[in-house]
Every structure is written in C-alpha cells, then in structure tokens.
C-alpha cells in the first residue's frame, strides 16, 4: 500500500456507515458517524461502479463547489474518500428540509420564523454569489435544516461559476415552479438574479404553505407567473420580447400582492416584490436583501433553535418519500386549481421535472467553443 492509499484508508476509517436514508439521481445517501466523536454524518455514495459513461455532471459540480464552500448556511462537506469503485462524500447530517417543514400541517409559522429562514437563506446565497457561484436549483427541498435549526443550502448539482461574464449558459435549470421568467423565455446569459427569483417563490411559499407558482408545464409556468404578477410590459422589462424563446402568453392584469398575502406586513411585501421583479437587473441582490428594512423591523427573527421543526425526523422520511402524497386540500394561491398541489412536490410530474433537469444535468454541449 503506498502513501496515497494509506491516506485514503485512514480517511475511510474515520467514518462508519449505517443504514440507507435516501437516494438521489446519482447517489445513495447513508447515515453514518464520525468514529472519534460519534457525530452523526451523512455519507453520500456516488454511483460509478459500472463505469459506463463517466461521472455525472451533477456529481462533478457538487464536489467541485462543496470542496470550496464554507459557510454556516451552506451544507458542509467534511471529507471525501473512495471505497472500491465509489466516491464517498461525507456531509454534515441534516435532519430535515424546508419542504417537509412547510408541509407539516401540525406546525404553525410565526412571521418571526419566516424571517429567520429567509435571513439564513439569503446569508448562504450571498456567500455563494460573493464567490461568483450560482446555485440554480433553489427550492424548499434543497434547503436542509440541521438539528439546531440552522438552514443550509444544499444540492449543488446544478451550480456553476459566473466569474467570467459573457458565457452562454443553459436555461434548462431550476425546478420549474421556482424558475424565473427570463429562463422560461430562453435567456442564455443570466446571473445571480435567477436564484433571487427562486428565493422569492420560497418566501411566498413559506407564507402560503403551498407552492406559489405551480405551473404544469413550461408554458403554463409563464401563464401562472403572469396571472399572479401581471404580464410584464416593455417598460417594466425592456427587451424581454426579444429573448430567444419569447412567446406572448396573454395579458393578465397586475393584482396587488396584498390581495393574496393578507396578513403580511408592508416590509414583507416590499421585499417579496423586489425578489419578483421581472427585469433581472432590477431584481434585488442577496446582499441588498439582507439590508432590507424587513430584517430590521419587528418582530426580530426567531432564534434558529426556536424554529418549528417536524417531529417525524429522517427515519420516517424515506418512507414518506415513496408514497407520501400529502393531500393538500388548500386552494392554490389564486392561480391553478388544486390539481398540481395535490401531488407531493418531489414526485410531481416526474416526467418533465426530471427530464428538464437531466438535460441540464447530463451534458451541456451548448458552450461556445473557442480555441
């Protein structure tokens, strides 16, 4: 055994692997422990065993970014080691995610709780954007929550660098309900604003307890969006009709956010509306958002340890994932009928959600090739 192998096997011995807790597109996740401290960890085993097509793009992106990022509100990659023909990522163990919390009907959210989650989300995102990294898949399911209540951005499988501006990127990113209109219109040059839109949708969802803009197809997503926020005008969003996939989807009037978010404070709605500005360049930035009066007005954000938490923790989670169609008989936010909401989001229209994801996740050959 040479030095390299020895180092690896020593790293491997630092961790034990217990039972499987979940499975994603390119990895199986186990619960484990750090041998020396007994600390709970998650071990994400990247499937490469059959060596057919090489490592998945999302696996490459996830390790690439998690190896660099270090922030209280970004999931921590503790270690990597290989076993047989697998790469193993050792992650901090996170009990639950924001999607489960939102769906847990036994929980009541106070405005201070929502403010706390929003602050943690923006802090994690500001850190990513400061380092010129786009997340490109923000949604409640990818905001994991630790046992101490800290919220962490996770799933960097679609993330990418944007330090060198002017590169064409794929618009097939971000789970549909959280995807901003510029991507739906096929924009290939975009920036941090795409993540902000997603955060806006999550913000609204925290208040509504149901997805804010649940479109049933990409086309319907535009309609759903415009129905909720009004069709953008040329003044509001100059040039949007020139975007590659622009299609007119009908004229919908603007309705005040107040009509839907009846209980929200003025500051809350002001920040929400700034996250959902159509013109990407005018959308609020993460840093600016953190300085928004909303975060300084009363009530103060709840301390993370005081935030509502699902009682059914990770153990029951895998089960729920299989059949857990939490029946939400709550009407959608003045938009769609109940249909799209009835399905659990994770499994909702798996066909196209997965399809659009895997297109981006697989290989993006659209890069301009320059010598």
């Amino acid at each position, binding site marked *: *055994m040479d030095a*390299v192998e020895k180092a690896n096997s020593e790293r491997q011995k630092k961790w034990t692997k217990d039972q499987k807790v979940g499975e994603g597109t390119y990895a199986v996740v186990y619960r484990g422990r750090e041998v020396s401290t007994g600390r709970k960890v998650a071990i994400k085993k990247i499937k490469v065993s059959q*060596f057919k097509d090489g490592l998945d793009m999302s696996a490459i992106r996830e390790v690439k970014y998690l190896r660099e990022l270090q922030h209280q509100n970004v999931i921590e990659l503790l270690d990597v080691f290989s076993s047989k023909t697998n790469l193993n990522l050792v992650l901090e163990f996170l009990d639950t995610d924001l999607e489960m919390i939102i769906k847990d009907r036994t929980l009541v959210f106070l405005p201070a709780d929502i403010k706390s989650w929003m602050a943690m989300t923006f802090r994690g995102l500001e850190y990513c954007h400061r380092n010129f990294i786009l997340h490109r898949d923000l949604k409640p399911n990818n905001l994991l929550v630790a046992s101490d209540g800290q919220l962490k951005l996770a799933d960097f499988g679609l993330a990418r660098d944007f330090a060198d*501006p*002017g590169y064409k990127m794929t618009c097939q990113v971000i789970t549909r309900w959280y995807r901003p209109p510029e991507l739906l219109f096929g924009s290939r040059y975009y920036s941090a604003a795409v993540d902000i839109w997603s955060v806006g949708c999550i913000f609204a969802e925290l208040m509504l307890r149901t997805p804010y803009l649940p479109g049933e197809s990409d086309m319907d997503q535009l309609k759903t969006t415009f129905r909720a926020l009004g069709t953008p005008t040329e003044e509001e969003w100059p040039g949007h009709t020139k975007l590659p996939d622009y299609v007119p989807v009908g004229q919908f009037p603007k309705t005040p956010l107040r009509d839907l978010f009846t209980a929200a404070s003025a500051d809350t709605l002001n920040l929400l509306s700034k996250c959902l500005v159509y013109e990407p360049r005018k959308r609020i930035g993460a840093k600016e958002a953190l300085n928004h009066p909303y975060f300084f007005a009363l009530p103060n954000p709840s301390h993370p340890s005081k935030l509502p938490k699902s009682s059914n923790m990770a153990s029951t989670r895998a089960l729920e994932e299989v059949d857990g169609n939490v029946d939400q008989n709550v009407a959608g936010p003045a938009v769609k009928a109940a249909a799209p909401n009835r399905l659990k989001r994770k499994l909702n229209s798996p066909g196209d959600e997965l399809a659009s994801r895997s297109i981006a996740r697989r290989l993006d050959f659209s890069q301009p090739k320059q010598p």
Partner: protein
Amino acid sequence: MATDFWASSHYKRWIVDRATLRQARADDLLYVDDPEYLDFLAIFFANVISKLGKKLLLRQRVIATATVFFRRFYLKNSYCETDPFIVIAACCYVAAKAEESPAHIKNVVTEARSLFSSENYGIKHFPSDNSKLAEMEFYLVDDLECDLTIFHPYRTLMTLCRKEGTSDDDDAEAGELGVGIESGPRYWGNGDGQLELQEGALQMAWFIINDTYRSELCLLYPPHLIAIAAIYLTLVLHVPTRATIQAQSQAEPETPTLQPRRRSSRQASNASAPSNINQKKSNQDIIGFFAELNVSMPLIATIAQEIISLYALWDRYKEDGNVETAKNSFPAQTASPYTPGTGSKRTLSGTSRSGSLNSGSGGETPIEGGEDNEDNVVTPAILMALLMKMKENRAADVAHPASGRPVAVNKMLERTQLSG
C-alpha cells in the same frame, strides 16, 4: 469560487514546495539517466494535453485546467508505474466537465485514440471502450481529492491589464481574452487602475502564461503571481513596449503636465498612434503599478527567472506542429540578463551522471548558438522510447524484487482490490 484564492483548496492543499516535487519524482528518477529528462517530459506531456484539448475544441482555460490536474496527479504517482496517456485523456475529460464545457466520453476516446496512434506517439493499444476512460476518471478524481476548482493566471492578467485604447466596459468583443470581472474585492492586492498594454504585448503575456504550464510552476506558485511575472517579462521583452518605456523614462521630467490627457486619449490613439505613442504612454506609471500590487517583487523576479529557464530548456526540445508560444520573443538564453537555473533544478548540475544530453558541461548553460548540438536535441521519439524503457525497467524490478525496491505492479489495479 472566483475571488477568494486564500480560502481555496488550490491554495490550501495544492501549492507545494520543491522538496515535495522531488519526492514525487523519486521513483521515476531511478529509471532515467539524467534528471533533466523529467523536465523534458513535463514539456512533452503538456504539449500532448494541449493537442488533445484542441482536437476536442476546448478553450485554453480548460486545457490549462487539464494540465494542472495532470501535474497534481503526478504528485502522487509516477510516470513509470502508470500510463500517462490514459491519464491525459482523463484529465481532458474531467477538465471539460469541471469547466462546464463537457465533451462526450465517446468523443474523447476517439480523439485520444487517433492522436495517440499518430506518428509522434505510435500508441496502438489505447483502449477503445469508454469504461477504461471512465475508470481512469474515477482514479483521477480520487487522487485529486475532488478538488476541481482551479485558479489560473489568465483572470488576473485580464483584471490587471487591458488592451490599449479600450476601457473597462469594452469587454463585448472579448471572448475569453478580455472579459472584465465584476467589481468585487480583488484577492491579489489593492491595485486599481489597469495597466494599458499594446495589443501585441497583451497577447505575449497571454502566451507566456500558456507556456508556464509546460513546467511545474502551477504547483509552486499562486497563479496571480505567475500572471504578474508574465506581465513583468512582457514589459521587459516586448520590443515596442520596451521602447515606449525607455522613451518614457527619458521624457519623465516633462510628463507630469500630460497627466490629465490620459482618459481622453482615445481618439488620439486612433488617429496616429505611432507619433504620439510616447506621450500617450508616458503617464503610465509602471513602477507604481507593480508597487500597488502589494506583492513581493523579489518573488516575482524568481518566478520570471524560472520561466526563462523553462524557455532555455525548451529551446533544446524539438517537436513538430506549431504551438502558439511566446518562446520566440525570448532572446537566446546566453543573452538573457538572468542566470538560468536559479531556484530551480539546475541543468546537469555537479552530479556525475552519464548524461547523454550534453555530458560534461558541468552546470554551465549548455548550448550556445546553433551549431554542433545535434545530439542535444530532444524529440518526442526520444522521450517515447525513454518512457517505454522506464516502464520496462520498472516492471523488471518489480518482477525481481531482489533489487530491494518496493513492489507495486499496477497501482491502480491493486488499489481497487485492496479497498474492497
């Protein structure tokens, strides 16, 4: 990660010292007559990567990333125990993915096979199925410890300098050359105010950076220092730029009055560049520019010297196919104001090895002029034969462990079995 180099895996785990580099080549050193061959191999492999990268239509930056992956891999492995060609293919494949311009695995296999079977390399056995490359990718990523974010000098160059007559917001036509970085904290220092370079000079600095990947500099120094060394060499060696600077320093006493003209000198530069070039450049304070960068100038000088010794070595290496390089801008090494070899492996230093290259030159600069050094020239054919011999000798040693050397037949295979 784009801004915080000091917090990066690149800085924390992959900048090594010379002792580590030597240690990494220890096994290979047992199988070469002269350690200098290993430096030639470093050039040779970088050229192979670059050729494969071009066939795959990868951008320069992606090729640079592939080269850094290759160097890092060989910090932990030896040439004589691995197949550097499959490693090269895997480096290009992973770099393309890590830099968001993925190439299909089938395509990489096809291009690698066709390139490696060409005359220069004559490799007929490169595996044609994807699974071998995929397997190598796994070992590579494992040995890279999943650290796939690489910082390159190019970005620093484009942040610090701009083409004469352009301004910050002119990056539209730029492609990779010339992308302006959004205003953010600059990790490399506190300088503001870019240095204006003539187009040829900027190009030259770019090529010098390309050339540095033919050495192990990317393992030794932070990329922004390499960029600054490249700018420094450009100012010294780019003839028109040097002339301008000289003219400027002569005109120095009068220049202060020209100060206000700087920002508005664009139309002038379009009109009749040659006649007013001195005036226009005169208010560029070169010394101030370097001082503002807040980096150690002696360290920059050391890196510059190492780049020059790379060119000196490269002068003795002949390979077909034209690479874009700044090499030809460098004066023959004897004319260089620097002593080649300082701080780097010395050429054929004192050790009484039976160096087949240029034996007996005893550490002096080996080649003068062009005559009488036919057998000093190193070619890909020589290096391919050398690689073959290294591998055979290694295998023989392994088969007869009497030599006392450690036995490790096929590291990769063994590793797979071991960890099961």
